[in-house]
């Protein structure tokens, strides 16, 4: 369909369609048949978890749950813990938190930025397209990377997220939005022509730079089309109790108290099929957590130098993460999907970080926990460490991809998969 016709086609769409027909939807149908799970959630604390308290001593099914994770005892049968998973080519350093879902650093792949594509964004492409939001990136960011090698922005504002997911624009705004999309698309046609003309006048290295611009135009056009297709699809109707909170004084919708609210929003998003791929990041930085017993900034605490007083404070913070995560798993068990099954059964939940030991900024022996998704759970697996090497974390990612119906057998620097442990 020529560009001009496409504009007219958009305008004529009106409110008559129930669900937009995507090309990718056809592909998704093929994928869905083989999938044992259909959703993916990733929770990632920027500074990892203190290794001394995260990893169980024993392996197998009857391991003792470490004190830090004791809130997860109720979910023992639904989760698996791993020891000695690495991102080997990352090489530690401050940036390793951001490599959690792609195992590569910007500085190492400058020539081929597409190697930075993160697991969640690959999933958004493959299984996320039939939802309104191919992926939802919440909390603090840094782990989601696009094919262009860009860190994608996240949203940590519960009110704004709620509005995005569940509040329909009024018809005036919808008309206006449709008009804007149409106008922007036409602008991009002209700009594309202009860019091609400019390209002829540039030197070689500048032309390579302009290619980024040209690629961006194509990608934006695709997204504008998508947005236009979804305008008339009504959003699910959900009461806003989830963000209003209690009535004594103002509800603190600020971090970290809004963590439970964000988790609740995630459950709602999954339940209403607003998105099938969600990432939630706990921020780093040197904030002073408003918990009793915590007197130093978070970042300072992660540089504990093994001092017991600092470790004690760090534990308070990490226990908070675990408590909230456990509550989330419980909600996933209690909430049913459209087929009447607990959400957890069809949702792969990954908890972990690209930062192994925050005190030394290591990217080895990462704290990894997997729950739900129809996997065979209940054990703690420890891989052998040969010299410096454990098992690549990407091997787990391959298993996750396959569980979600994607027939890839490689991801980033994987050497195999972990199907024999989880499926």
């Amino acid at each position, binding site marked *: 369909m020529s560009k001009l016709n496409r504009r007219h086609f958009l305008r004529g769409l009106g409110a008559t369609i129930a669900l937009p027909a995507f090309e990718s939807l056809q592909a998704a149908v093929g994928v869905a048949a083989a999938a044992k799970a259909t959703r993916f959630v990733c929770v990632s604390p920027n500074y990892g978890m203190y290794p001394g308290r995260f990893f169980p001593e024993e392996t197998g099914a009857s391991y003792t749950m470490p004190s830090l994770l004791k809130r997860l005892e109720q979910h023992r049968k639904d989760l698996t813990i791993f020891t000695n998973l690495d991102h080997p080519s990352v090489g530690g350093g401050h940036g390793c938190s951001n490599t959690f879902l792609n195992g590569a650093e910007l500085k190492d792949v400058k020539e081929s930025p597409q190697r930075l594509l993160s697991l969640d964004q690959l999933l958004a492409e493959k299984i996320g397209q039939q939802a309104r939001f191919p992926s939802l990136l919440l909390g603090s960011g840094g782990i989601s990377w696009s094919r262009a090698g860009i860190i994608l922005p996240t949203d940590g504002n519960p009110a704004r997220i709620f509005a995005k997911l569940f509040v329909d624009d009024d018809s005036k705004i919808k008309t206006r939005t449709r008009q804007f999309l149409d106008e922007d698309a036409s602008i991009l046609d002209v700009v594309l022509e202009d860019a091609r003309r400019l390209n002829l006048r540039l030197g*070689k290295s500048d032309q390579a730079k302009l290619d980024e611009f040209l690629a961006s135009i194509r990608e934006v056009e695709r997204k504008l089309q998508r947005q236009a297709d979804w305008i008339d699809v009504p959003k699910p109707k959900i009461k806003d109790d989830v963000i209003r909170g209690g009535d004594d004084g103002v509800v603190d919708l600020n971090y970290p108290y809004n963590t439970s609210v964000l988790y609740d929003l995630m459950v709602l998003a999954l339940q209403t099929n607003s998105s099938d791929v969600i990432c939630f990041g706990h921020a780093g930085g040197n904030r002073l957590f408003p918990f009793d017993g915590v007197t130093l900034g978070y970042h300072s605490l992660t540089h504990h130098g093994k001092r017991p007083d600092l470790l004690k404070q760090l534990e308070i913070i990490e226990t908070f993460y675990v408590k909230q995560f456990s509550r989330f798993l419980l909600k996933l068990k209690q909430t049913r999907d459209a087929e009447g099954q607990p959400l957890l059964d069809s949702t792969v939940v990954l908890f972990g970080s690209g930062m192994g030991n925050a*005190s030394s900024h290591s990217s080895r022996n990462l704290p990894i926990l997997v729950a739900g998704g129809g996997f065979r759970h209940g054990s703690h697996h420890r891989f052998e460490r040969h010299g410096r090497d454990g098992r690549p974390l990407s091997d787990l990612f391959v298993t996750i991809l396959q569980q979600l119906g994607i027939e890839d057998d490689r991801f980033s620097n994987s050497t195999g998969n972990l199907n024999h442990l989880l499926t």
Partner: protein
Amino acid sequence: MRALTFLISTCQESNQIRMGTLARHHVQDGQECPSYCVRLISAALILMSLPSISALAEDQSRDILRPFLNSYCIKCHGPQKQKGDRRFDRVIGDFSKLDEAEIFQEILDQLNLAEMPPKNQKQPSEAELKKIVAYLTDSLAKARAAARSNAGKVVMRRLNRVEYRNTIRDLFSLKMVDFDPTTTFPPDDSTEGFDNVGEGLVTSDYLLKNYLEAARKVADKAIQPGPRPKMIRYRAEGEEIGGARPGFGGKAARLFTKFRQPLGFSRLDKKRGVPADGEYVIRLAARAHQRGSRYRDEDLRYNSGEPMRLSISIDSRELGPTAHRIIGEYSIPDTEIIEIEHRVWLEKGFTFHLHWANGPNGSFKRILRKVLPKYTKDALYPIRNPPEMYIGSGPELHVYSVEIEGPFFDEWPPRGFARYFPNPPNKPDAAYLDASLTRLAGNAFRRPVTIEELEPYLNLTRRYLAERGDFWAAARYGVRAILTSPNFLYLAETAPTQSRAQVSQYELATRLSYFLWSSMPDDRLRATAAGGTLSNPAELRRQVERMLQDPKAAALTENFVGQWLGLRKLGEMPPDPQKNRAYYRDDLENAMREETLRFFRYVLNENRSILDFVDSNYTFLNAALARHYRIPGVKHDEFQRVSLKPEYRRGGLLGHGSILTATSNGVETQPVVRGVWILENLFGTPPNPPPPDVDPIEPDTRGVTTIRQLMEQHRNNPTCYECHRKIDPLGLSMENFDYVGVWRDRYSKKLPIDSSGKLPDGKIIDGPDGIKQHLLGRPNQFTRCLTKKLLIYALGRRLSFGDRDDIDRIVAELPKQNYGFRELVQQIVASEAFRTK
């Protein structure tokens, strides 16, 4: 030629060898070495193949590299055996060949990690190891630089966030105080420490979507046809004031708590704010009532000891909480009514509110339920008792009247609008639209535009006009399209026809204005370029002088200094509020930043010697910062220039709290970070990055007493020491400044500070003064460092070998001009690198 030695034992190989850009391999476990006799044969084979190695070009590689490889590597990585698929007998030592460089990088990494040679093989001596590591490190750094250099070509820069904002400001003469179209733009990546270097400025679809959205907002702001907007004047008194609790006010609206009872005009709030951009005057009358009352401060969560303060905030319903900003705070007297008048520029859609800034903290409901019952038997806990029981008995802020009037304008129509749409006719037509947009494109693209290149844009807007019939909507549409063009978003320069071609007049004007103003050229600069005289050296000098005196040159200070000195990091790791009350009470973080900015601006404006950055006998302080530095006699709250006595130990950048705090982590000092900072920003000799995947040293500070002892670890590993012998002495010499820049003579009663250090050349320095004296003794070193940094910022690209001549020339010239900073800027603009492409 060295003799080869044999070992009678099994080789072990590691399973994985760290790869640079080569692919990974896994090697099987437990592979045994061949027997003794096979080794003999392999030795013979190696001897026979040595002639290929003997053909090495460089003397150094013959003297250092080849013998080392022969002694320690070839046995397992040569013609007979290629453990891990590695083979080193065929390399020549030509670092300019990419595949050779990769091999050597890998060898270097293995040596640094002490992975190779394997522990049970013959080990090189410490001296040999040091020599080969130094040789490889150095050669590889050079090779990298050569491979990376763009041979002086500017990789096209797109406008970064700051530049986009400033350019919009100047393109349309807009006040950008509460209008920022870039709030959702993704952050810009830095290259070589600066976020205006083209290489790192990537365009993604996310950014492009933002550009479209931003262009829409800008077009709405910029196109203001029609007559001057009608003025509004709202006045309310007493209980009529919006937000006042009805039934108790009487002559005044009463405030009971902090921030939860905003007073304002419900009319404004309902109408979605003020009707137009412009300057508004807010007037109010207020008085403090019963500041001290029968309620205890702790119960009310309130401090009756300080005067009541009223604050004015501006808000936008549309933009939500992020737009909320306090624009003024006033002390309200206890005994008489005060009248306040406040002028403020408000964007259309904004409204304002009044708050009791330091009132009781908590909700009014809380006071009725939890506080009141403590003081009145009739009040029950924890029910919400009637307000009458409380009102009048506690502290209250009374506002008697509030008024808003505006918008006021200096000129109409707005300058930016009139520039492109002068004297619009009653029924403007397509021809007028064409002319206006052509004028705009000429400014936006920063060069004359041809009809044919603009034709598609003009066709687009003409079609829009024909379809909708709304001229000004079509005009806005045209603006949006032009602001999305790559000719606007990128500082595009046409391909040079030869190497070292001069940039065009317009390109030179653009480079100049983005260097000094982070924004587009103004009319005068543009006219000079149009006249063809900008490249004339005398004219260029004049323009630089003029531009540095323009207020827009503040951008140079803000953007260069923040990045050169890493000031933007200040605030990332704030110190513990419990232990550093003064830091927060006195707003020291901002004060420190202010000191450094003002210092820089002064050196630039007065053309002072750049060596003032190394050491100076003055700085800029306010009373709070002077207290922090323990400098007596500074009483003024505003910043002023203060003379420094040597015993204050604060001269130059090394005494600035901003840098001392930004190089610490809020808990303790970090000598390595400080050492690297000094090498990077003062010495101009940044150390190589640490080797990849260093087995993490997990610091154990339980038993260690000083940080100097902790850093002894660096000495124990010879390859760590290679770089750390340059870093550690500098960082440790700064230990007298703690993590917020306060001078200390000792760590504690028992632990004195040892601030001595030995530099790589053997010289002993002591304390920050030692570093300063060392640098002042070789002023060209710092000159070169600053020149390079400023040149990267000015060019917006990395430096290449070709720039070396320019830098050498500047470093030789500047001492003759007394190292004047302004002169340095002039020299950079006059350099070949700045004027050619």
